[in-house]
Structures are given as structure tokens and as C-alpha cells.
């Protein structure tokens, strides 16, 4: 990933941040930046570095925002708050003109001339720079120009900050606007352990940078900065919104039943448009004195969600919430392209976080205008996909999980096998035996872990392979667990028996990004205590932010826990309290019972995922063995949402 920090960047130690503020304030400029207020980070005047939210972090989810402190010395770990820079470039209220009635019945009219404050915007994120570009295009890039906006833009210095953390509602990478800062800034800071790598993006920025005290940034500092931004991109993923062809897909769905469904939840409260950094609709009110002598026209933010917005004398063009929501979404993501040649969305995530009822624009877009291929990180190209071609992997270690189940650590010859995703599987073959599918139970940096139960001759042969021996692997194959659907939500992982194995890489991934998810519950059922997989790790997960609950069908030596089935662990819980996602794997009857309980507990079918097991030979949808209704389990699955499966899931004989 490329960040903007050129080799000539300056390093600003964190304790000398005030030097930058002093520089920005020269000539009477006021610095505006992120400051804590009333439980959020708001834009306010920054007098010293102490005003910045050092050590604070945000937790964001649909309809949810919380701050916590004590996360170290960093000044810019909190990403976007509810206010965008639109607050300053395009104020919520602005007197625009004065009309006077003169004594002899005459009238005079005068616009209010722009009088922009001299500001420095501190902490502008990449998505916000994109939003400013959109505003530049909308308000100052056409035939008619908002003079006040243009004056405010010209009067401001823009100090960008690259994101080294992403909020769970952020999706700039999907919209192609961040997290790397590329243009539109005067200065850009990237925060690293001891301070900031600072570079310039404009002649004005060059002049400031030349006067900023501090050593040149070292290669290591620059690498750390770009590494941190790259990690942010990787953690965020770039597939929250499938932008390819989105305009046409959306405009094709003006009659989607989903509009009515989202209108059932939508409050038409206009919060999404108020926090959106590109929404620019306004209305003008006239404030008159009692005699109507002096009349000041004042422009204020308005919203297409408000009843009066599309009203004319004869009625309202959009009387219903569904029509207003459709207007907003299609304008932002479709007709904006027609008008301004760009998307109206920059992926800042504010409309998701600050929707009072947690409507997630990413989810609505996926539901209304799904991409041709399902949303989800595009699986890597398999190391070897063609039937009959296998990569050779070396067995390094065998770990006995239970009497009949072993976890194999294998080093594949082709590292592409290590780029698989949780929930994907490989076809395993040994000379002389038929190939069989096994889900990866962990991706290591050099090794692939497969957990195999000796159920027949082929699996027994694999388990009998000596250390240092070789097996054939083909994959990774199939559709992975859609982890992005769990961002910002509570997560339920339900496993039965060996079904825990395909879920372990999912748990690894959840833990790697722990603060991007809500609560995580692992409910694990096994036949007996001796049949539990990964016993040591169960305890470890419980101390790393996962609630682990266990149950066995039959008790055994040393077992003091619950006896019963997995559903017993779940049926008293209320999953409707917060948006939740469930991932379920185990025997099919266990999955049917478990998913029923999860659905009853309030998780919608679109957010309950199962991994199906079928006879597979090719693993790439060519042999027909695993067909179920319209699906080939191997390539369309093995992971499905209940909504995708519909009544196929519970039906026998399909």
C-alpha cells in the first residue's frame, strides 16, 4: 500500500506537537480539531495539544458510539465523530441576504458578503478530504458557485491525518477514498509510536513544513507509518460496498420491496443527512422584524427526509418514508454520478453510526442492489484448482485432539494455500486414495492446520502419514465465513463436535480484530468431555474477550459443566438486544436445531450462517456430487446464510 509520506518527511515528536499548533496559528488563524465533548469527539478550537483526545478510542457500530480512554499516548486514535468539516465549510446556519422595505414603498436587496474565518482544520481524514473534493465539485465546481463556501475553503489550511485505526462503521477502502491520504491536503500527519511523520501536499504545506522544527523522518519511521495505514486498510476490508456497477444496479431496483422494509425502521429523522459530509440541501427562512422593514434571509441545513422538503402547493412528491429513503440512497450512490461524476458517499460511516435505529447503508445496498457475486472478501485464487493437480505439503506435526481426531500441521509448497480465509476448505489427497474435503482449522504464517477425524480409509491414511511425509492439497476452495457482516455486531459462534474446527480460523480472525466486534459468544457442544476439540484454547479464548459456554451430551470424568445439547446453551438468551450475527457448524441436525433457537432469539435469517457438509470430489462445482437445489455446496458454499438456503435447509431429501 502506498501512503503519501515521501522520503523527505519530517518527524514531529508527540511531545512537541504544540510547535505545529503554534505554526498553524500564525497570522491569527484558529485551529479547529477533534476535542472530547459530551461523550463524543467534536470539532472545536484546539489551544494546545492537551485539548486533543490523547489515549481515547471510539467504539462504533450501527446506532452505537462509545468512547473509552487509557489506550496510550496517541492523539488521533479516535476516528470520525458526528461532525464533519461541512460544519465549517458549509455552516448549519448562514445569513445570506437582507431585504429592506423603504419608506416610500421601495425595496432594497443585498447579499451578505462572505466573511470567512481564518481556520486551520486539524485532523482531516482521507474520507473527509474526499468529501471536501465532492463539496468542491458540488458547490464550487459548476456553473454557479456558492461564494461563501469558496471563500471558506480558500481561507482554510487543511492538516490531514492518516488513519491508523478504523472504526467498525468505516468503509473508506470500499469507496476508494482512504485510508491513505493522497491529495487535497496542505500537510498530512501519520501517527506512529513516538510522534508523527509529517509531509506536505501543497505549496502552502511545503512552506509550513520547512518551518516545522524536527528531524527528517527516518526510513524506519516512514515504513512504520505506511505499515500502520496498510494495516488499517487490511482490517477494514474493501468489500463493504460493492461499488462496481452500483449506479446501474441501484437504479434498476427502484421497485425493490426492500424500500418498504427499510421504511419500517427508518425514522425519517434526517440524522444521516445531517452527519453526512457531502449532503448539501438547505432551506431558507426569512427573519423579519415586526414591521417587515428589515428581513434577513437565513439558509439552514435541510434534508430530503423532511416532510416539507418536496412539498408544493398541491401536495408532496415524496409523502412516504420509503420514498424519502429511496431518494436519499439513490441520490447518494447513483444519481450523484450523473450530476457530479462521482459517488456522493465517501465511506466515512457516520450515517451508520448516528442512525438512531442503526440502519446500515452497507447492508441496505447489499440487500437492495446486490452485486453479481455475493458481497464478501474475494477469495484468493486457489493454489491449485484444476482437478488432479495438487500442491505438495509436508507434514510437520500431529496433535491428538481426541481418540479419533488429530490436527495436522502442514507446510504447503505454494504459499497461496496460506492465504485462505476462515471457512474455506482444501481437497486432500494421497496417492491411491480418493480426495476428500477438509476445512482449514487454522492459517499460520507458514503452516496450514487441518483437523481430521479418522472416519474412513482415506482419512485414516492421512492420519497415518509420518512426520516429514507429504500429502497433496488443492485449495483453498469455497466461500468463507462472511466476517465483515459481523463488524460492529455481537457474534454468536455455535459449534457441535468437530464442527469447531472450521470455526477456529473464524475465532482467530475475530480475536485479531477484537475491538471491531461486539460481544462474542462461543457455544460448544460435544458428545462427551473427551470428544472436545482444542481444550486448551477454549480456556484461553475465555480470557481474551470471548464468552465460552460448553455442554456435553454425556458427562465424563472430571466434567462439572452442563449436560445437554447446544441449544440448551442458547435458548434462554435474547439476541435482539443488539444487532447480532451467528456462525454455526456441526452435524446438520444440530445446525437445524441451533439455528431455530437463534432465529427465535431474534437474529434475522440473513445473519445466521451455516457451513454445510456434502460429498465432494472436485471441489470446484464440476462433478455434481454436492448439488443442493440451485447450489453446488463446494463453490457456492459451504457457507450459506439461512436466507440464501430458505426452506432447502430444513428439508430432507434435497
Amino acid at each position, binding site marked *: 500500500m502506498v501512503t503519501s509520506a515521501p522520503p523527505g518527511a519530517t518527524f514531529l515528536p508527540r511531545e512537541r506537537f504544540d510547535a505545529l499548533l503554534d505554526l498553524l496559528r500564525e497570522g491569527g488563524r484558529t485551529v479547529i480539531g477533534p476535542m472530547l*465533548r*459530551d*461523550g*463524543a469527539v*467534536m*470539532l472545536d478550537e484546539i489551544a494546545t495539544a492537551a485539548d486533543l483526545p490523547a489515549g481515547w478510542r471510539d467504539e462504533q457500530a450501527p*446506532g*452505537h*458510539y*462509545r468512547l473509552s480512554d487509557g489506550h496510550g499516548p496517541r492523539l488521533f486514535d479516535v476516528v470520525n465523530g*458526528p*461532525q464533519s468539516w461541512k*460544519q465549517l465549510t458549509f455552516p*448549519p*446556519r448562514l445569513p445570506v441576504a437582507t431585504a429592506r422595505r423603504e419608506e416610500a414603498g421601495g425595496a432594497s436587496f443585498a447579499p451578505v458578503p462572505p466573511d470567512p474565518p481564518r481556520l486551520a482544520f486539524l485532523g482531516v481524514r482521507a474520507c473527509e478530504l474526499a468529501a471536501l473534493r465532492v463539496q468542491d465539485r458540488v458547490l464550487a465546481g459548476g456553473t454557479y458557485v456558492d461564494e461563501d463556501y469558496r471563500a471558506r475553503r480558500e481561507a482554510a489550511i487543511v492538516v490531514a491525518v492518516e488513519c491508523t485505526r478504523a472504526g467498525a462503521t468505516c468503509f473508506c477502502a470500499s469507496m476508494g477514498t482512504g485510508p491513505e491520504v493522497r491529495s487535497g491536503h496542505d500537510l498530512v500527519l501519520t501517527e506512529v509510536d513516538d510522534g508523527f511523520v509529517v509531509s506536505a501536499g501543497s505549496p502552502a504545506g511545503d512552506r509550513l513544513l520547512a518551518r516545522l522544527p524536527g528531524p527528517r523522518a527516518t526510513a524506519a519511521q516512514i515504513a512504520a507509518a505506511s505499515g500502520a495505514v496498510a494495516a488499517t486498510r487490511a482490517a477494514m476490508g474493501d468489500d463493504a460496498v460493492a461499488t462496481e456497477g452500483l449506479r446501474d444496479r441501484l437504479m434498476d431496483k427502484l421497485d425493490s420491496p426492500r424500500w418498504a422494509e427499510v421504511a*419500517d*425502521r*427508518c*425514522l*425519517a*429523522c*434526517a*440524522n444521516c443527512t*445531517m*452527519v453526512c459530509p457531502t449532503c448539501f440541501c438547505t432551506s431558507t*427562512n*426569512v427573519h*423579519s*422584524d*415586526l*414591521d*417587515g422593514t428589515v428581513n434577513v434571509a437565513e439558509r*439552514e*441545513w*435541510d*434534508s430530503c427526509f*423532511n*416532510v*416539507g422538503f418536496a412539498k408544493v402547493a398541491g401536495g408532496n412528491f415524496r*409523502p*412516504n*418514508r420509503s420514498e424519502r429513503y429511496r431518494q436519499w440512497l439513490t441520490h447518494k450512490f447513483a444519481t450523484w454520478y450523473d450530476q457530479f461524476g462521482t459517488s456522493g458517499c465517501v465511506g466515512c460511516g457516520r450515517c451508520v*453510526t*448516528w*442512525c*438512531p*435505529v*442503526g440502519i446500515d447503508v452497507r447492508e441496505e445496498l447489499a440487500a437492495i442492489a446486490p452485486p453479481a457475486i455475493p458481497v464478501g472478501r474475494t477469495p484468493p485464487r486457489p493454489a491449485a484448482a484444476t482437478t488432479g493437480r495438487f500442491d505438495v505439503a509436508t507434514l510437520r506435526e500431529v496433535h491428538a485432539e481426541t481418540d479419533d481426531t488429530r490436527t495436522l500441521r502442514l507446510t504447503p509448497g505454494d504459499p497461496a494455500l496460506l492465504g485462505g480465509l476462515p471457512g474455506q476448505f482444501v481437497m486432500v489427497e494421497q496417492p491411491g486414495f480418493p480426495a476428500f474435503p477438509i476445512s482449514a482449522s487454522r492459517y499460520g504464517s507458514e503452516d496450514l492446520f487441518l483437523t481430521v477425524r479418522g472416519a474412513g480409509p482415506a482419512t485414516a491414511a492421512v492420519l497415518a502419514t509420518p512426520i516429514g511425509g507429504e500429502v497433496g492439497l488443492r485449495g483453498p476452495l469455497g466461500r468463507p465465513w462472511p466476517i465483515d457482516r459481523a463488524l460492529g455486531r455481537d457474534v454468536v459462534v455455535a459449534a457441535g463436535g468437530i464442527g469447531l474446527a472450521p470455526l477456529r480460523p473464524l475465532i482467530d480472525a475475530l480475536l485479531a480484530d477484537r475491538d471491531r466486534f461486539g460481544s462474542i459468544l462461543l457455544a460448544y457442544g460435544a458428545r462427551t468431555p473427551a470428544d472436545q476439540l482444542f481444550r486448551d484454547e477454549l480456556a484461553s479464548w475465555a480470557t481474551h474477550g470471548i464468552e465460552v459456554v460448553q455442554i456435553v451430551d454425556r458427562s465424563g470424568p472430571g466434567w462439572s459443566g452442563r449436560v445437554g445439547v447446544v441449544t440448551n446453551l442458547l435458548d434462554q438468551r435474547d439476541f*435482539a*438486544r*443488539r444487532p447480532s450475527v451467528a456462525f454455526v457448524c456441526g452435524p446438520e441436525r444440530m445446525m437445524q436445531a441451533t439455528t431455530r433457537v437463534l432465529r427465535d432469539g431474534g437474529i434475522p435469517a440473513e445473519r445466521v450462517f451455516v457451513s454445510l457438509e456434502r460429498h465432494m470430489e472436485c471441489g470446484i462445482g464440476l462433478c455434481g456430487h454436492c448439488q443442493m437445489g440451485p447450489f453446488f455446496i463446494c463453490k457456492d458454499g459451504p457457507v450459506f446464510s439461512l436466507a440464501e438456503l430458505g426452506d432447502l435447509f430444513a428439508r430432507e431429501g434435497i
Partner: protein
Amino acid sequence: MAAQRPPRVGVVKLASCDGCQLTILDLEDELIAIGQRFDLVEFPEATSRRSSGPYDVLLVEGSVSTPEQLERIVELRARSKLLVTIGACATAGGIQALRNWSSEPEWRASVYPRPEEVESLATATPVAEHVTVDAELRGCPIDGRQLLELLTALRLGRRPQLPDEAVCDECKRLGRVCVLVASDMPCLGPVTATGCGALCPGYARGCYACFGPKDAANTASLASWIGKDRSPAAVDRLFAGFTGYAPAFREQSRRAIAAMQPAPRRRHPKGEAS
């Protein structure tokens, strides 16, 4: 305009706290100018001048809650060119309208030792349920700026600019932090009409709907979201406030009142049973 005679204005009250008409007297900077431009022919709270009409404009505070008020509002309507209701009582029934779901004689008996001597209707209802209303100012109490806008518009002959949008619009314009999203406080702002200046979120508490439901208020969706962490009774009670009798809040209010009814018991005067 100056040549015309000043409009004859009346200010009267039904069942109410007087706070809305006090808002007129609280326009301290404009009061004298208002007095010069409007002929306040009837405003018992402020002047001993009296007039039984006709009025060019009549501002009516309070809800209809006695037989006498019911008669009176019909008479007043007939004597008024424009009738404007002011405040939550007149426009939505007010807090006293919550009795509309219970047994009024029983309520009367719980407050008065000799209930038969008290004249009261079984319900307290908004003025518009009885007579045609030309305009309304909402709020508990009304907002002084909206009142001034109404008076100005009346004088200039234009339509008053009164927003019909959520409290949230104003809350965001004023740069306030959403107490629902950031602090999980129950807030009715998203379903409530603005006009107060998003007061409560600015004072770190949830909106309690003084201005009543906004257009197309999606009460059910907000209630279900707030209800994720709260009992249904607690959610219903949020709506059973000063505009709880407004149609969009009525169902929740009705349930809340039913849940709050104490078990029947023998009563001492004033409902004090201990």
C-alpha cells in the same frame, strides 16, 4: 400596513398552566412594540381591559376539559376570524389528557374528598377536536421565537415559518451530541417535532416530546429500538407525557396508563392510602 387598524387580539385559556400565554409576556424585548402593533382587547392575565369579541386573532391556551369550556370554545370560535391554538394542552390535550384512558370519576375521587362538587368532563381534549383551528403553535410551553414568528407573519400577511421536522435536525445543526447513540439515553427526538431548539439533548437528557410527534413519526421503530434494553412498560411511559394523547403516541400512552393504574383500594381524601 401601518394605515390599517391594529388587529384585535384575544388571549384566553382553558385547562392549562398559563405558561404559554406567559410566553407572550416573556418576550421582554418586543412586548412594548407588540402592544403598539396589536390591540390586545382580551388578555385577562395581563390587562383589565375586556372584550367578548369579535377578535381578528384569538390565541387559545389549554385543553377542553369542563362542560363550560366546551360551550365556551364554540362561542369563541364564532367570534374569531383566526383561531390559533398555543401549546401542548390546546394542540394535543396536554398532560391532563392522560386521564382520557381511565375512569375520570375515579380520578376525581382520588383528588377531591367530595368529587360531586367538581365539574369536569371525562376527557381533556385538544381544541381542534371541537372547533376548526386555523394555526397552531406547539410545545410545552410554546417557543418564544415561534410565537414572535407567528405574530410577525400575522402582521405581514405571510405564512408563518414553522418547521415540521425532527428535533434531530436542530440538534445536529446546533452541534449537539446525540444522547441516544452516544449515551444510550432514551430520546424521543427522532419522532418529535422541533421548535424547542433541541433543548434536552443540550442538557444531557433525552427529548420528552414537548412539541409532539413530527410528521410521519415512526413511533414503533423507535420504541422497538429503545426497547432492546428496557421493559415495554418503561418504553411506553416515555410517550405518555405532555403530548401523549397525540395520535402518533396514543397507543403507547394508553398502554402506559393502563400499566400505571394502581390496584383498586379504599381511598382516603387526596388518594392517600397510607
